[in-house]
């Protein structure tokens, strides 16, 4: 069941939205409608669903309606038509009391220019959402502090926003949004005002947080790199309409139309696609529980000739081949420790595909994608070749 479900959602700014909507449905363009009726199309019949735990990115050029769309979702902007369901409750049809409840409990927003309250300290800013809910002082300061710890600002609680750098201010913005423990985070170009290095750092941190907290995140950006880095799925907008929804790979490999293609054109796929984009979920056995028998059984089930071995917390130990496993069974060895091959071909999440291509060429087993010693995924030869083939096609065009 999706957490956010948007159906046929439209927003037209101006005096006569219904007339404009009619023309729009007849196929007129945004500019023509502006000329004819003086109304501006903000969002045109957008429909999509976002699953729990997903980072859903909405991308598009300036003026394409991203901000409008995200504000329709918490109804900071009243829709002209359509509905927004949050956990199956229709926001568009809600009275103001219920709307407040949903805004307080279900979703928080992070803003492009931070929107912190300058007269409140970092802690008081973070407490804002809880204060509005009427939660008592000790409780809310406890929660706010936890939330500030999460974003690494535990020691800045008594500063004022004006005393912090942009990156730190946006961390406060994030902490403030997380303090309510919402299910949905709405982030409107949350990192666009930051300089590139800080921006990357914040993206990593968001991904980190997301891994722990499993929120549902609606992330707006006009930057393709950012979209590819953090999005589980990406929706592309143009003139208020959504023109394509797909995984980052979908968008790169199968651009839906010229517009998307243009967007994607200047991105060299072999550079953009890194290990994390082409890796798949690894089959593993647990060295603390499993012996050669289980390993062999799993390989047989999955049709593999080798399998990776980790411990309980997914630290990579090595791999075991089917041959070695059968031999160990014959010799009645119970423990995998002496059976595994520890010389493993590894790369990390950000290794570009070019390098992987070279590695995988002469490796007998899939490449292990490792982060901090933990196995995050594996890359099989087919995936690399497939992805590179896609990129070669576009280069030749």
């Amino acid at each position, binding site marked *: 069941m999706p957490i956010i479900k948007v159906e046929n959602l439209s927003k037209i700014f101006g005096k006569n939205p219904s007339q404009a909507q009619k023309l729009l449905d007849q196929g007129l363009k945004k500019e023509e409608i502006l000329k004819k009726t003086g109304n501006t199309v903000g969002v045109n019949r957008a429909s999509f669903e976002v699953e729990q735990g997903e980072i859903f990115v909405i991308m598009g050029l300036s003026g394409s309606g991203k901000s409008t769309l995200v504000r329709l979702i918490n109804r900071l902007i009243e829709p002209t038509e359509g509905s927004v369901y949050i956990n199956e409750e229709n926001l568009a049809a809600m009275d103001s009391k219920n709307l*407040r409840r949903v805004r307080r409990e279900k979703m928080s927003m992070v803003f492009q220019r931070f*929107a912190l309250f300058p007269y409140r300290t970092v802690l008081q800013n973070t407490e804002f959402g809880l204060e509005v809910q009427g939660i008592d002082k000790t409780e809310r300061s406890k929660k706010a502090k936890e939330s500030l710890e999460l974003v690494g600002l535990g020691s800045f609680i008594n500063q004022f926003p004006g005393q912090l750098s942009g990156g730190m201010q946006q961390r406060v913005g994030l902490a403030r949004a997380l303090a309510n423990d919402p299910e949905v985070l709405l982030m409107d170009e949350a990192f666009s005002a930051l300089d590139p290095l800080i921006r990357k750092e914040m993206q990593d941190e968001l991904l980190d947080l997301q891994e722990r907290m499993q929120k549902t995140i609606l992330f707006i950006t006009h930057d393709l790199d950012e979209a590819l880095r953090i999005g589980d799925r990406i929706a592309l907008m143009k003139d208020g309409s959504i023109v394509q929804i797909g995984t980052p790979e979908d968008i790169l490999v199968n651009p839906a139309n010229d517009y998307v293609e243009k967007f994607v054109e200047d991105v060299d796929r072999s550079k953009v696609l890194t290990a994390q984009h082409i890796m798949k979920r690894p089959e593993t056995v647990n060295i603390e529980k499993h012996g050669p028998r289980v390993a062999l059984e799993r390989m047989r089930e999955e049709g593999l000739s080798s399998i990776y071995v980790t411990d309980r917390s997914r630290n990579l130990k090595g791999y075991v081949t089917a041959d070695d496993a059968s031999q160990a069974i014959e010799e009645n060895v119970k423990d995998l420790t002496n059976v595994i091959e520890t010389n493993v071909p590894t790369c990390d999440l950000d290794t570009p595909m070019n390098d992987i291509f070279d590695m995988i060429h002469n490796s007998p087993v899939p490449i292990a994608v490792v982060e901090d010693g933990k196995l995050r995924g594996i890359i099989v030869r087919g995936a690399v070749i497939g992805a590179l083939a896609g990129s070669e096609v576009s280069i030749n065009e």
Partner: protein
Amino acid sequence: MSNTLLPMIPVKTWVDQSVEWITDTFEFVFDPIKNNLDTFIEFLSETLQVINPWIFIAVVAIIAFFVTGKRIGLAAFSIVGLWFILNQEMWEQLMDTFSLVITASLISVIIGVPFGIWMAKSNIVQAILTPILDFMQTMPAFVYLIPAVAFFGIGMVPGVFASVIFAVPPTVRFTNLGIRQVSTELIEAADAFGTTGIQKLFKVQLPMAKKTIMAGINQTVMLALSMVVIASMIGAEGLGKEVITALQRNDVGLGFVAGVSIVILAIVIDRFTQSLNTQKGE
């Protein structure tokens, strides 16, 4: 006159009749206001008179020192200025004037801020109030004395009434302006966290507008002070009355002393309210 095409429209009569009607009909409103205000101003003034002038001056100087961020300027000026007024035996008048200004400013703020908020929340209210405020400010201040006397007779209270009408517009305007100036992103932030209208007002809009509102209040206080001479024409006690007396007796010396005293009070009050504002903002 018969040199116009139309007979003269009896505006004067109409206004006369309306004021008379208001005075009679709302006597039950005006009388208690008058009595209570009279008591309040008298109480305030007498309390201030009781305080030893030297202690008063010392306290003002100390507060001045701290509100200006531990600078000596205003404190020194207050000591010299107030001492001068004391020396010229104008202390009692000073306290009367001070009470009048405080009362008028207080009432202006109590009325002005809510109106400013109302104006900020509704474009219709803004459209209605803006020309009224313009009118109130462009009307010569003297004119307010006439209905003031009609409603409240002679004394301090009509002085306060006239001062309030003259002085309230900046507070209303600046409150409206301050609230409307709050950035849309902050308002969106407040809304996105599910604030009610009241929460948004007190937790976001008023704190954000505070500086602007204080600037409006500063102007209001100065306008109220500028009314003291005019208000003494209808019997308000204080420094203004000395100016009027000097005028009637052609007493240049007295006029000068009273005038300078008013200027000193004006400077002290102005700097005080201004530094209260800047200090809080930082």
